[in-house]
C-alpha cells in the first residue's frame, strides 16, 4: 500500500494551471469562482489525478507499469484541504485508489489503476 498526504495551496493550484495549460478561472480567481456558485477557487480534478497517479506509480513499482488509470471526481478540493491519497493492491494487476479529505469525505471514488503484468 502507498499513501501520500497533500495539503492543497493556491500556489500549488496555480503552478498546476501553468504546467498543464488549464487556466480556467475557477481554479485561479476567487471572485470569479464565487460568481459561478463555487465556494472560491477549487483544485483541478486533473491535479488530484496527477497526485493520485504518483501514489499509484509508487505502489506499482514505477510509472511505466501503469496501463490504465480511472478517477471519479466525487468532491471539491479547496485550498487548505488535506487529502490522503491511497493506492492498495486489489488483485494481481490492479490497484484500488482512494482519496479522502480531512473531514473523512471521499474526493475520489471508484478509482482504479491497472498494471502491466
Amino acid at each position, binding site marked *: 500500500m502507498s499513501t501520500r498526504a497533500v495539503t492543497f495551496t493556491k500556489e500549488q493550484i496555480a503552478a498546476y494551471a501553468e504546467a498543464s495549460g488549464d487556466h480556467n478561472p475557477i481554479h485561479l480567481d476567487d471572485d470569479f469562482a464565487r460568481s*459561478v456558485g463555487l465556494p472560491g477557487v477549487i483544485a483541478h480534478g486533473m491535479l488530484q489525478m496527477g497526485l493520485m497517479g504518483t501514489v499509484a506509480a509508487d505502489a506499482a513499482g514505477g510509472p511505466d507499469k501503469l496501463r490504465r488509470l480511472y478517477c471519479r*471526481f466525487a468532491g471539491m478540493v479547496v485550498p487548505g484541504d488535506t487529502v490522503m491519497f491511497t493506492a492498495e493492491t486489489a488483485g494481481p494487476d490492479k490497484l484500488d485508489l482512494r482519496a479522502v479529505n480531512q473531514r473523512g469525505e471521499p474526493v475520489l471514488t471508484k478509482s482504479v489503476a491497472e498494471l502491466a503484468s
Partner: protein
Amino acid sequence: MSEVGTGAAGVAGRTYPPVEFRIEADRAAAFARAIGADPAAGVPPTFAAVYSLGVTAPQLFGDPDAAVDFSRLLHAEQEFAWMRHPRAGETIVSQGHVVSDVSRRGMRFVTFETETTDGAGQRLCRSKALFVIRS
C-alpha cells in the same frame, strides 16, 4: 443506450481534426514538479492530461455548436489507458471525438474521447473524459 439530445447544442458523434504535439522535456518536467513526481523519472503518465486531453478538449470547448459554458463545466470522471508511455522529444497526434452528449435533470453530460498515436501511427493512449455542465 438511448440518448436524449440537447437540441441545437448536441454534438454527439462529432470528431475534431487531429492535433500534433511535441513532448518537450522542459514542459514534462514542469508538469512532474507540479504533481510532486520526480522529473528525472521521465514523462509522468498523467501528462496525458496535456498531450492527449489537453490538446483536444479546447476544440470541444471552442466549438460554437457545442455551446459549452466553460465556467459551469465540471470534470466528473477521467480515464487514461496506455499502450505505452511517450518519451520526451516524441511528436504525437491526438484526435478528439464526442461519444455522447446527454441532458438529464437540468445537467448536461458530455463524454469526450481522445485517441493518441505515435509518429509511426501506433496507438499510444486513449483518454476518456466525462464533463458535466451545470445549468
